């Protein structure tokens, strides 16, 4: 399973990319692999506000569905509309294809995220 070095990760197999006060969020290679062929990605609306650990999106395959949780409280500032027409982008390149971009409310929450090393350890345990 691919894990990128410069990203943060969560227990629910999301990745987070921090750029200044903003965060891109997507699902990891492990998550897309477990879901199988992704058929739909439910996107939040711009300006929607979510608390930490609230589900802001859902990713569906034929046989499974998985909520995507927000690891940092924040406001949606952009969504990846390419996923509406081609949800399979999450299968082909989960790290390139973020789901939504957030304005981060509380930067201290970033410290609670997993590093790539920690996430690799988690994956090793799950296998």
């Amino acid at each position, binding site marked *: 399973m691919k894990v990128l070095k410069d990203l943060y990760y969560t227990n629910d197999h999301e990745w987070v990319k921090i750029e200044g006060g903003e965060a891109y969020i997507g699902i990891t290679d492990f998550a897309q692999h477990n879901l199988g062929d992704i*058929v*739909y990605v*439910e996107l939040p609306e711009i300006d929607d506000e979510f608390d930490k650990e609230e589900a802001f999106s*859902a990713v*569906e*395959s*034929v*046989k*499974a*569905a998985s*909520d995507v949780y927000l690891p940092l409280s924040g406001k949606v500032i952009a969504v990846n509309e390419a996923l509406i027409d081609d949800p399979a982008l999450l299968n082909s390149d989960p790290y390139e294809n973020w789901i939504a971009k957030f304005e981060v409310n509380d930067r201290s929450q970033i410290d609670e995220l997993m590093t790539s090393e920690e996430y690799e350890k988690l994956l090793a345990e799950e296998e």
Partner: protein
Amino acid sequence: MYPYIPITTDDEKQMLESIGLNSIEELFADIPKEVQLNRELNLPKSKSELEVFSYLSSLAKKNCSQSDMISFLGAGAYDHYIPSIIDHLVSRSEFYTSYTPYQAEISQGTLQYIFEFQTLICNLTGMDVANASLYDGGTAVVEAAIMAANIARKDEIIISKTVKPDARKILKTYAHAQSLKVVEVDMKDGVTDLEELENKINDNTAAVIIQSPNFFGIIEDLKKAAEITHKIKKASFVASVDPISLGILKKPGELDVDIVVGEAQGMGIPVSFGGPYLGFMAAKKSYMRKLPGRIVGETTDVDGKRSYVLTLTAREQHIRREKATSNICSNQGLNALRATIYMVTLGKEGIKEVAAQSAKKAHYAYEQIIKSGKFKPLFDKPFFKEFAVTSGLDAKTITTELENEMITGGYHLEIDYPQLKNAVLYAVTEKRTKEEIDKLTRVLEGI
């Protein structure tokens, strides 16, 4: 031996041997002693087909069948004509003895008729997407409310008092359990008071629900109500409709309705003492992945052949469990087939003709009943196939007198609206003849 249990005593012996046991009792030995039932069930012993038939037909005969009466009773269950071919086709046991079409290869029959049902419901209502059915019109209202609340992430549902009472009661039951707030909008001269709606709607409103024709048979101004609802961000406008009425009335899709629900019993399903009927739900495209219940989609198989499958299943309980859009599993499959056959049998002209005849006969009955002045119209508003009249006579007396003349009278509105004392709601379908309507008028005059 029992006719539905083919295993013989000899078979039993051989099978037990194969299992490695000596008696049937051993198969139940894992049930803890203290919970085993060590007596016969206190029920009658098994019976022959003849005995069962004779007993149950004696119960059926204790009822007064509508085929021996002239019915003017509606209030949510209607005596529309059911073409003969419906019973014949749904009696094909490949349809009625099959399970939910999870194995698409051997369920194309069920899958295709559901696809046709969805198409017909969409065309009838003017909406983009319909599901495979819901239990009935009342629970369909509730499913719409819950869907709207989940989508909007809000908790207030506004419903008009002219929506049929059962639907409002069921909504209250579910709303209590889910901590949703139900706000009722009062009526004014038999229709939803839209000024009051405008006052009550607010930022917490997830859905506004109106029925048209409403419980009194009166046509509501859905367009105006939709406009009011859409002033609120993320609020859904839900209309509950009589599908037969759409043979002549404007489609909800033309009136900017977001979610259409209704009871389709009138389309080929017998009144059957209240069930099973057929709830349906159709909506704008944006609701597609939030709909409760099953949806069939078209696809191709490995050889490129057009075929049908259950689709968008990630919404459903067997995949999403506690996050499902609803807990519904079994729905009204076979009754959806009845309605499908009804819609294609009546076809483009037939639904219109049924609707027009019902409306014209209802208006004739209305004119005749109020002509003498003994009965007064309860409301003065345009109606479809049902209307309410009131008089100095007690509603129960009217029903009894009509029954003596083999007529099933109307519904007593006082049951649900205490202020509407002595008011009776009459339904007239295309099945009633002039002669029958004249008889009703004559008997009513004579009371």
